[in-house]
């Protein structure tokens, strides 16, 4: 339902014009640390988001996602480090920085006493005058145009989420920051949101930062991931790395006629390899580029190979490894 309708083309056109004025870096987090009452919650992290990019911000509960995002949108002060939005420091150039970001932090709690339109007008009034004019088209984008004049207290959770998304888009921000936006959404709503974000990124060059503690929600959405744990960015990884390889190592599962010999041979060749727990295969960590060398090494060593498949994506492996001692 977030599919872009014909009627919304005009708006999207506007978005494109606005957002085409290219700056590569929409968000830059530089050595940011957050301490609350002497407890370090975020420890010297660095992140960046470019135009048209959807970045997943993954981490178990309590990892520091919300804290980071709240610093980005000005809800939390920064203990040390710098955050720039479209080149504006949020410390020294707060209003310009904020003019370029739209956000939903946790649940979008709105004004129950106002109508949907009243809510949007209240927020729009704090942006540029165009924001007020965009209310109608943004409402169409989230399919709420028929309910704008109803009181918010009569809305379902799903409808509130849509108004929440609408308020983040009112001023056509170049950067969208969404903290666990799928909380409370049904699968259909999640898909609609995903489609909308993809369309904004693709068609309007919007940069999106989406946090989640569930990898599954991100897999079909993000171009790149930051994985955070205990306030530290432990991994930055892109989908290209995962799919098309390069030098990044991945798990390969090899079925051979002698798994023990295969493991030994691979280890001799300098790869990390071991027989799987069930003894039915050899698991080898190898980068995509090195796969031919590994296989020819085995063949020349007289090991018969029945099959060689890339194992589960190393992102999930990593994420599971990282989070195995944290509750998700």
């Amino acid at each position: 339902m977030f599919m872009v309708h014909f009627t919304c083309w005009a708006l999207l056109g506007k978005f494109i014009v606005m957002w085409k004025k290219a700056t590569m870096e929409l968000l830059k987090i530089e050595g940011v640390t957050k301490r609350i009452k002497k407890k370090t919650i975020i420890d010297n992290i660095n992140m960046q988001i470019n135009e048209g990019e959807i970045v997943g911000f993954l981490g178990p509960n309590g990892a520091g996602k919300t804290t980071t995002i709240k610093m980005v949108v000005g809800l939390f002060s920064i203990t040390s480090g710098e955050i720039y939005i479209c080149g504006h420091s949020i410390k020294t150039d707060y209003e310009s920085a904020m003019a370029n970001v739209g956000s939903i932090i946790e649940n979008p709690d709105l004004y129950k006493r106002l109508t949907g339109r009243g809510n949007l007008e209240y927020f729009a009034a704090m942006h540029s005058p165009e924001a007020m004019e965009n209310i109608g088209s943004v409402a169409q984008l989230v399919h709420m145009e028929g309910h704008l004049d109803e009181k918010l207290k009569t809305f379902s959770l799903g409808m509130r989420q849509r108004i929440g998304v609408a308020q983040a888009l009112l001023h056509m921000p170049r950067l969208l920051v969404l903290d666990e936006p799928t909380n409370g959404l049904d699968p259909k709503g999640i898909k609609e949101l995903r489609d909308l974000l993809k369309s904004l990124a693709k068609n309007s060059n919007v940069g999106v930062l989406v946090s989640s503690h569930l990898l599954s929600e991100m897999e079909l959405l993000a171009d790149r991931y930051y994985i955070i744990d205990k306030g530290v960015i432990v991994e930055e990884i892109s989908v290209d790395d995962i799919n098309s390889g390069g030098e990044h190592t991945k798990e390969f599962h090899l079925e051979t006629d002698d798994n023990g010999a295969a493991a030994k041979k691979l280890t001799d060749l300098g790869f990390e390899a071991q027989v799987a727990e069930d003894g039915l295969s050899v698991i080898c960590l190898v980068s995509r580029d090195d796969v031919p060398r590994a296989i020819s090494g085995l063949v020349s060593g007289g090991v018969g190979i029945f099959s060689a498949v890339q194992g589960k994506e190393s992102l999930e492996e990593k994420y599971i490894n990282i989070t195995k001692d944290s509750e998700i």
Partner: protein
Amino acid sequence: MFFAQYKNEIRRSIFSSAFIVVISIIFLVLSIAHPILFRWNNTRNINRRYGGYYYSGMGVDTISIDGISIGYDNPFYWEISSLTEEITRITTSGDYADLSSSAKELMIKYLNLELDYYREAAKVATDYMDFRVQIAYSGSNFLNKVFYYEHFSDPDIEAVAKQRLPIDLAQTAKMTEEERMEELAELSGALEDCRKIFTSDTNAAFGSYIKVRRYIEQVSIRDWNKEIDRLAEELIKNPGRSVEIESQINGMRTSIEVAETVNLPEISYREANKIIPNDGSWQNAALESMVQNQQSFTYTVPAKEAEYLSSPYMMENFDSYSAYLRSIERQRSGFHELVLIAKASLDAGTPDMSFDRMGSRAVSFGYASGWIGFAIIFSVMVGSWSVANEFQAGTIRLLLVRPKTRNKILAAKYLSALSTAIGIFLASCIVNMLVSGIVFGFADFGNPNFTVTGPASFFSKYFALLAANLAILAMFFNVSFFLSTATKNIAASIVVPIVGYIGGNILNAYFAYRTINATLKSLMPYMPFMYFNFTGFFETSPYSAIGQMVSRGIEVSLAKGVTVHLAIAAVALGLSFLIFNKQDITS
């Protein structure tokens, strides 16, 4: 830009709140109803102000006199019914059993005389506010004396007098026949004048009123002078009692002074200007105020130092004899000021606001000063709701991510809520003024108020009151606003200032009439709770709570009150911004 955000707050935040809208409407209704109810209630009260009110519904029988029915609301109803009963009981149930039958006859004769007198009075002086009532009661005093002197030679008179007549028998026994006849002639004349008042012709009755009152004052002066002579002789005989006797003599001299310089001139003034007592006119109110304050002025004289030193009460209340003297001087000048105001008002022929309680000025001033408590509670509610509401609803997270600094957002919230709290109060004052004008006439607004330095426009006093009230409102508003940002909890930020308001009023009442030590005395004028209502500072009366405090050396003043409120308001506002700017939005 900032104004846009202010408008945004007013329109979509403040006036989208049903609660604020409802309170605003209540305020408006109140300001309209106030003058109307005031007028309605006043008309009702005049009819039942005294007597009748308390006995209504007790099922007492009315009495019929010459076809006129006298009910319990008649000022003489109780005299008539108890005299009637007294007469029947002498014959039927043996009251006054120790009197001989001829003495009983004489007693019945006297009681009938008194009964007739009151019946006559009851027919014309039908309500308690009638000026004839006072004279009618004085007349009953002449009546019993006249009866006594007329029956002086009757052997039963002494027995009757002992039982029923307030006569100093020891003294009359010493009088010569000639003196008695003289006294009788004079009293009969006075009684006749009193009886002349029993006519529905107000002019004629007023003439008698003047005559009788003047006679009473003159007799009093004569009696006091006689008594002073007697005491002077006694003083020569008993020099040991000099302190006591001299104080008695001084007391009487003061009474003579009051009679001569206050009461007699009042009577002449009434006579010359036809000011009928209790007729509800402002002239009467002004004259009564003048007389009362002149009397207070004359009677308020400082005690001698020796007397001061021997009174633990005075010693406790004042730091020193000179402080005591200053305080008395202050009270006297307060009374004097009120006398001057009344006099200036009478001379100018236009009422000061204080003499015309049913005038537009008094009613609208009364609204602006009397409903400040409601306005305080309203400000506290708006101030508390303003920021804490955002935290409690979680909307703060959507509010503070806008391209506006926190200072701007808070300033817009502050100014919009403050201007609402204050604006609604001011608007209700203006509406009240208009409705008062419609109900009581706009002309009254043009009348000046009188001060020691001359007449002053009503509005200068009215706007001074409003300005002072705004300081109170700003203080309460800012404190709740501060609590709202600090606690992020609406209930807490409402309850704390309201408890403070109520507690402060209790403390104020507690300290107003209480003996306190010098430290407290010097601290009190800087306590905000002394200034939760400024009405008292716009009244000159030394009897008011503020007059009492000032005269006891607690130097409260309007300027101090406004300063204290504004200082607290400034601190609270500064802290609000400090906290709001720094805090992490954890909700």
